[in-house]
């Protein structure tokens, strides 16, 4: 196996009391793509945010344990946080251009790190826009607002902006989930091309994407590290049953469904009300399966249940018109 780039040791994160990461220890290999997979709310984004200490911005979040990057403890008091962040580019779920022109977006990082000369900045902008395949599309309108680009172009711009500070690591949090298939493919191709020079960590919900990209896989579940290893081994022959279940998309078949209701033909908010009544008859930790066919219910019922503090285990389309929503009472 190749060298370790990010070394995470006994790492814990708490959000004002709630533990989001439990004793995570894992080594992230250099110049490879590591995919972090796991169901919603298992702490993937949290782990990513700890790697560049953006977690510092969250009120009430505390961490313990160590994260070493190139052997340097990033949570150490003596470590300069801007240096750490300069080493890492971040690609967020939603493309987030800065409120400035296309040119200024890419030049932002180099500028704050001391590049002043126009000719140098021009070269940097061209280099990285070319690298992400955007140069030809935007070279005639570098001064127009970045927000005018299409969503897919914006995401590539964000990638270029991150690369322009010359990081060693690229952190991606579901970078393609807001994009159309073609733009997603574009980003995936970029990442594959970039991995010879960069260490890439990508959080993804999409198991197929993980299979296409990853050399190394980290599987989190409810804040715990379930399994990690080479992608080829984890995907083909997972050691842990939970990983196998997650990969097969049958994560909770082992969890007995305690009650099932069919809410087809109901609209919102009746869907939600009936689901709530059904949950009311159950015990804590019991599992309820709901079938709905009303499109709004697919997003609103899970959201409402989460607000009520229940655990939404799965939302999945089961045929042309129907969706299943699986909820665990809390």
């Amino acid at each position, binding site marked *: 196996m190749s060298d370790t780039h990010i070394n995470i040791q006994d790492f814990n994160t708490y959000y004002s009391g709630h533990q989001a990461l439990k004793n995570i220890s894992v080594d992230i290999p250099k110049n490879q793509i590591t995919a972090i997979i796991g169901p919603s709310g298992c702490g993937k984004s949290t782990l990513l945010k700890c790697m560049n200490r*953006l977690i510092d911005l969250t009120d009430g979040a505390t961490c313990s344990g160590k994260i070493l990057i190139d052997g340097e403890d990033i949570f150490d008091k003596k470590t300069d946080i801007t240096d750490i962040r300069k080493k890492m580019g971040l690609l967020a779920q939603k493309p987030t251009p800065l409120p400035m022109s296309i040119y200024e977006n890419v030049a932002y990082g180099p500028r704050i790190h001391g590049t002043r000369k126009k000719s140098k900045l021009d070269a940097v902008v061209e280099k990285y826009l070319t690298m992400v395949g955007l140069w030809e599309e935007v070279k005639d309108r570098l001064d127009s607002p970045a927000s005018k680009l299409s969503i897919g172009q914006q995401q590539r711009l964000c990638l270029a902006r991150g690369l322009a500070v010359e990081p060693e690591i690229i952190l991606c949090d579901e970078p393609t989930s807001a994009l159309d298939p073609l733009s997603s493919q574009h980003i995936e191709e970029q990442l594959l091309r970039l991995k010879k020079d960069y260490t890439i960590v990508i959080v993804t919900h999409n198991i197929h994407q993980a299979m296409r990209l990853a050399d190394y896989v980290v599987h989190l579940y409810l804040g715990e590290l379930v399994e990690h290893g080479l992608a080829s081994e984890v995907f083909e022959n997972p050691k842990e049953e939970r990983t196998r279940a997650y990969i097969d998309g049958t994560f909770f078949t082992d969890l007995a469904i305690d009650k099932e209701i069919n809410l087809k033909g109901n609209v919102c908010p009746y869907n939600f009300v009936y689901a709530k009544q059904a949950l009311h008859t159950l015990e804590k930790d019991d599992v309820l399966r709901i079938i709905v066919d009303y499109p709004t219910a697919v997003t609103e019922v899970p959201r409402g249940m989460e607000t009520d503090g229940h655990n939404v285990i799965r939302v999945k389309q089961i045929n042309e018109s129907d969706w299943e929503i699986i909820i665990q009472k809390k």
Partner: protein
Amino acid sequence: MDIRIIEESVFKTLMILSLTTVIGSLLVVIGVILWRGLPVLTLDMITKTAEGGYYLGTGGGILNAIVGSLYLAVGGTALAFIISVGIAFYLQNEYSGGTRLASMTRLSLDILWGTPSIVYGAFGFMVLMQLNMRASLLGGIIVLTLLEIPIMTRAMEEVIKTVPQELKEVSYSLGATRLETSIKVVAKQAFPGMITGVLIAFGRGIGDAASILFTAGYTDRIPGSLFDATASLPLAVFFQLGTPLPQVQQKAYASAVILLIIILIISITTRLIGKKYTKYIIR
């Protein structure tokens, strides 16, 4: 008929009524002021200072009040801006992180905002007396600064608060410091809103009479230094309407028209500036 349809129409009528009240009263106010003020708004009125005393003098114009008001409001707004920007950014989570001091600051600003301006005036007057100073342009500017700070700060803070967290995260993730993020990203994104805050405060400052009554004084001349007393438009209206002479009363309406025009110019500029600088804003 269906009760829900009745409800709907009752509600609609109420809405239309309140809208007409708002727009109607605005039009009536503007109409009356223009009707009384425009006929007397001669060129002399805006190019000459008052002659023969501001209280009983019938000659001259109100140039002293126009210039005085602009001096006062521009000075007060400039000082308030410098202070407010600092406070508004400090009140962000990254700097003050929900500390006691931050919530105390907010509370103080809200109380100051609600304080009647005559109280500022009285306070300023007492301070001037203690310092053995007379009413002056400087005194007026300082009191207006105090009056405008809470308005400006709270307005700016509200806009700054709406800057999406993701934008800041992007900036931090590129290795920017808090200050760089505040200046280059937050201030840019919030700029149009901050300008609106400044101009609202300016409007409040230029229109306030009570706070400068004792602190800026009133005079026939244009102030030559910060320590001279100065005239102002709101006080011109106040004094001139109070005279028994119809010619002087007319000057009050001319002052009111000028004040109205300044406020209109400000509102329109706000809109235009807002439009111009929203080009790069992320929505």
